[in-house]
């Protein structure tokens, strides 16, 4: 897509790409154009990759862009769609936003955040709303508003019923709305999990056409754009508070991000097994055995060096 790149192709590709959501998109013309030259397809894919990178990190990008008065960013909570997914862009966005806060960039300066270290941390967000952060997790209140939360890591929320107040939490690629209940949210990169112990919450995700309501005893797992629902024992919700991690058909990549938090080291998963599902109960302890336990239950290999831990397909 580089040296041999033809600017005409680049421009034509951009025109097709910009038109693809329009009602009058010429799909037959697009097909013919694609068939004319394999480079056309590559050019479209390159644009899709840029588009995705922007979408995924748009909160952080928005915070870095110079303020543009003409752009008139909508007032908070004013419109339905626009800032709905602002926080929903996964750990990339969340971590980068965290960095933006650390650098005291103007737009993010008024955010409030809470970070846990190796232990769990209790956070009283406001009257009737409290959160228990799992180790190495971070919660951000957008603009200091504790009803607008972004989570990277895992947390258990306890929200007293108050119809006048809706809490919104984004984590991974999902968004949770709640009026009053007790539930756990975990989000990292493309993965997210919500498990409800009491009451019910509403969960939206890019992989869902419309939000789903999740009642007590139900869990939702989002892995990339795939969303699965499953029952969960209410006693197992946020079991890390009792020193255990409980999984039922969880994506291995989500398990790995949990383990990374408890070990404080990167845990990566070979793409060949990242979509595998994992079920089992792990004892956290000091966290150092977790990766090995996961590997032995899942039947995968674990490789550890100074850079971190890697889960790989087993030799056989």
């Amino acid at each position, binding site marked *: 897509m*580089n040296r041999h*790149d033809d600017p005409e192709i*680049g*421009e034509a*590709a*951009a*025109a097709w*790409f*910009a*038109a*693809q959501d*329009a*009602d*009058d998109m010429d*799909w037959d013309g697009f*097909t013919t154009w694609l068939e004319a030259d*394999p480079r056309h*397809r590559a*050019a479209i*894919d*390159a*644009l*899709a*990759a*840029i588009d*995705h*990178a*922007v979408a*995924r*990190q748009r909160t*952080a*990008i*928005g915070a870095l*862009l*110079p303020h*543009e008065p*003409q752009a*008139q960013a*909508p007032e908070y909570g004013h419109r339905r769609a*626009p*800032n*709905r997914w*602002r926080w929903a862009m996964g750990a*990339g966005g969340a971590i*980068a936003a*965290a*960095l933006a806060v650390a650098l005291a960039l103007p737009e993010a300066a008024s955010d409030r955040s809470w970070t846990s270290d190796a232990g769990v941390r209790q956070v009283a967000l406001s009257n009737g709303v409290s959160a228990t952060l799992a180790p190495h997790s971070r919660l951000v209140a957008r603009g200091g508003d504790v009803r607008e939360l972004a989570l990277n890591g895992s947390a258990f929320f306890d929200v007293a019923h108050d119809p006048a107040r809706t809490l919104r939490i984004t984590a991974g690629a999902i968004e949770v709305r709640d009026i009053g209940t007790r539930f756990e949210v975990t989000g990292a990169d*493309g993965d997210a999990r919500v498990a409800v112990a009491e009451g019910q919450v509403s969960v939206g995700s890019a992989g869902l*056409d419309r939000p789903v309501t999740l009642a007590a005893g139900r869990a939702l797992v989002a892995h*990339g754009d795939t969303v699965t629902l499953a029952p969960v024992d209410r006693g197992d919700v946020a079991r890390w508070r009792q020193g255990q991690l409980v999984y039922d058909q969880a994506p291995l990549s989500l398990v790995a991000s949990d383990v*990374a938090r408890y070990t*404080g*080291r*990167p845990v*990566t998963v070979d793409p060949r097994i*990242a979509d595998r599902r994992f079920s089992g109960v792990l004892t956290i302890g000091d966290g150092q055995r977790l990766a090995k336990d996961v590997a032995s239950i899942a039947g995968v290999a674990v490789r550890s*060096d*100074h*850079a*971190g831990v890697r889960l790989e397909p087993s030799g056989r």
Partner: protein
Amino acid sequence: MTPNAETGLRALYIEHRAELKRFLVARTGNATEAQDLMQDVWLRIEAERSGPIANGRAYLFRVANNLVLDHVRERGRRAARERDWADVALDQRAGEADLADPGAEVAAMLSQNVTRLAAAIAALPPGAGRAFRLHKIDGLSHAEIAAQLGISRKGVEKHMAVAMAHLRRMLNDDNDAPAADGNWGDRRGRRHDQVTGDAS
């Protein structure tokens, strides 16, 4: 359009199957993948329960196109994961890397991408940049942007095309693989300062 969205879409799928397939083969460059995607389109419309859809044929193509984009994205994610791992391992071999705080390592990597993307967006021609920000950062639809900027929907589309073409030039990678997931291989943030005309 038949009044029944479900049977209507299925009938349209059957009617336009050949063109859809041709589109998917052209779009993916892979007949097997196109066949899998045809099945995904069918599953998607079977699950569809919303009311009547205005332009069913265009809807089918959009569904197919979005499924392709999902595939491209997933491939990119995998490639990025692989590369991230390779980068970490490489840094380690280089010796001095301080991995006491692995979170900082990840954050640095991500922030670099974010910074680069933000810089590229900030460098867009004014009209295209404004439209791009409203659409991709603030989440406004083309129609909403048209209303806000006082231009036609086609004008917005043109702005978006100019913005995308510029971004691709500015973010162009030295590798041959499309830089998915914000991991642009070139760390120096090379960009072309020459900016061509703005569509307005």
